[in-house]
């Protein structure tokens, strides 16, 4: 799967562990929220970083105190129509101050990248392969942004002379 970050394709340096898979003694891994809650101590005892995978229904409140430990949070799109992850992304960034990599992964399409980048997603791993150019174009689909969101602190009426 192609992953695009900062305008270029990157290789995945993370092992995305299924809930059933054994935790390797070392190496970067991501785990589900469920597993993080269940095996937090063991995961924290490892020498290498742990990332988190969130699904649409996950509540960020329960991990607010842990967020800064994660260099990576993966938002797992089960279906492109499920917009809950857009709210989740904003909450992670704006309410809980998550500053690490926020990666959208799974069933979403290039036309949603504009919205995703506005709510704080910075890395894109859609099911269908995509080029860095296409991601760049998608992010800049619209040059005017009416609303405040993660990317713009203020609405257009505060930013522009109208």
């Amino acid at each position: 799967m192609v992953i695009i970050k900062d305008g270029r394709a990157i290789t995945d340096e993370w092992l995305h562990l299924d809930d059933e898979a054994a935790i390797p003694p070392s190496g970067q891994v991501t785990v589900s929220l469920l597993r993080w809650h269940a095996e937090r101590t063991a995961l924290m005892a490892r020498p290498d970083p742990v990332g988190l995978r969130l699904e649409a229904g996950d509540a960020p409140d329960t991990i607010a105190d842990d967020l800064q430990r994660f260099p990576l949070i993966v938002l797992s799109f089960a279906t492109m129509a499920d917009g809950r992850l857009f709210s989740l992304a904003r909450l992670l960034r704006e309410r809980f101050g998550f500053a690490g990599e926020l990666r959208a992964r799974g069933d979403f399409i290039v036309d949603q990248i504009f919205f995703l980048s506005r709510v704080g997603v910075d890395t894109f791993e859609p099911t269908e392969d995509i080029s860095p150019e296409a991601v760049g174009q998608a992010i800049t689909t619209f040059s005017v942004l009416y609303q405040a969101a993660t990317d713009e602190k203020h609405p257009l009426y505060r930013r522009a002379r109208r």
Partner: protein
Amino acid sequence: MYQYDEFDQRIVDERVRQFRDQTARFLAGQLTEDQFRPLRLMNGLYLQRHAPMLRVAIPYGLLSTRQLRMLAHIARTYDRGYGHFTTRQNVQYNWPELNRVPDILADLASVQMHAIQTSGNCIRNVTSDPIAGVAADELEDPRPYCEIIRQWSTFHPEFSYLPRKFKIAVTGAEQDRAAVQVHDIGLRLVRNEAGEVGFAVLVGGGLGRTPIIGETTRPFLAKRDLLSYLEAILRVYNRFGRRDNKYKARIKILLKETGVAAFTTQVEQEWQQIKDHLVLDDTEIERVKAHFTEPPYETLPAELPGAVAQRTESDPAFAAWFRHNTFAHKVPGYRIVFLSLKPPKVPPGDLDHRQMDAIAELADRFSFGEIRVTHNQNMIFADVRASELHALWTELREWGVATPNINKATDIICCPGLDFCSLANASSIPIAEEIYSRLDNFDYLYDLGDLRINISGCMNGCGHHTVGHIGILGVDKKGEEWYQLTLGGSSANEAALGERLGPAIAKPDVADAVTTILKTYVELRAPDESFLQTVRRIGITPFQEQVYGHH
């Protein structure tokens, strides 16, 4: 009316480019139907029974004559010469070709129009009082707030993939002509005890399969907090609204299942976190308000000019139109004129391109170049000099838009139904025509007084049947068209959902049943009592006895 600045224009231009690319990718097989669906829907494009249907936004129902001429041009160039004005103040084209839709959008963008978010699971066209700005009972013009909400909701990055569609209506008047109680969010401009003007906020109203009257979550919201409070509601809905069943996905179900108090608390908690970060500035309100200034009214005497008054004596046809299709204006010497899009033998809300051009021409001459589209599927010239009423009437009549039936039993709201819509279970336009044909006697029509008959071809309820004084809902029974009647619904101040009359009625008997209901009303009404008042006083039993007793 609101004029786009460079920012607004750039957005619609860029949208055209984006949709041209999306359509090309779909036609080239690079997007699957499943992938293209949400994209085209957010541009108001349905794939229907015969051809695609394109729904164009008319924000809060306001059109300039330049825009109406463009709608005529589109009907002529890309469609079969006509358009259908809807219950949500939009216009629909039933016959465009998919590959030409990007060109239609480009034409629309050239007159500051678009089809953005006219469908799909996102925030839809904001609707309002069709006589906003000229209504005598108005606290404040709601349209600047509609425009502010339009901009806030356009391509909102967080709320473009909601559980389901989301409709917002705003009114500034005492009489609710925007049906705010049956919207996902209804906003009513109100004054609080301190004398400040803000909004009463209703949430969770709606029609469709589960019709519900909205609940007040905040009796008073300061203007500065409008957008942050909307954002709090939408965030709670986006996160917690049901996505497992599309028929239970509207915010009204979330509100019902959560409970009004718990939902209100949830919204309140979310709002407290964001209210100081998203403030609607006074300067922005003033900027938008400056677009909704009054036209240059003349100082005129309040009484009807002698020549016109005399016509109302000597010409019964003009008198009927004057009485039923024109309404008091807040400025002396002016009248609000309704154009009826409900003549006999025409689907309610349809206009052909010649009529659109003619109406634009007349609006330029008689009403400062603006037209309003109502959610009852009619049009309005808001600012007509009383002295010119007869001249205007003469021309409107020629174009078939002066049928004197506003708010009467033949002013029927009707969805396109089985003849056009792929969702419909039953036809609706033929039912409307059949009922209409029984009401060709104007004396009888006027004797019946104000009466709203609403017809939907399926329980999605685009014809707003649940809030019709008489509601008619088409249902499918083993491949046959049957109709469920309700009585006593209303979307005005005393909003109510109609009560079911009884078992569904076969298609050939529907017009008879309606005729019987009307006859029963005439027999049982008290002096000066409207149909709705009679139904509320005596209940539906006497109507049931008459309708079902005969069958």
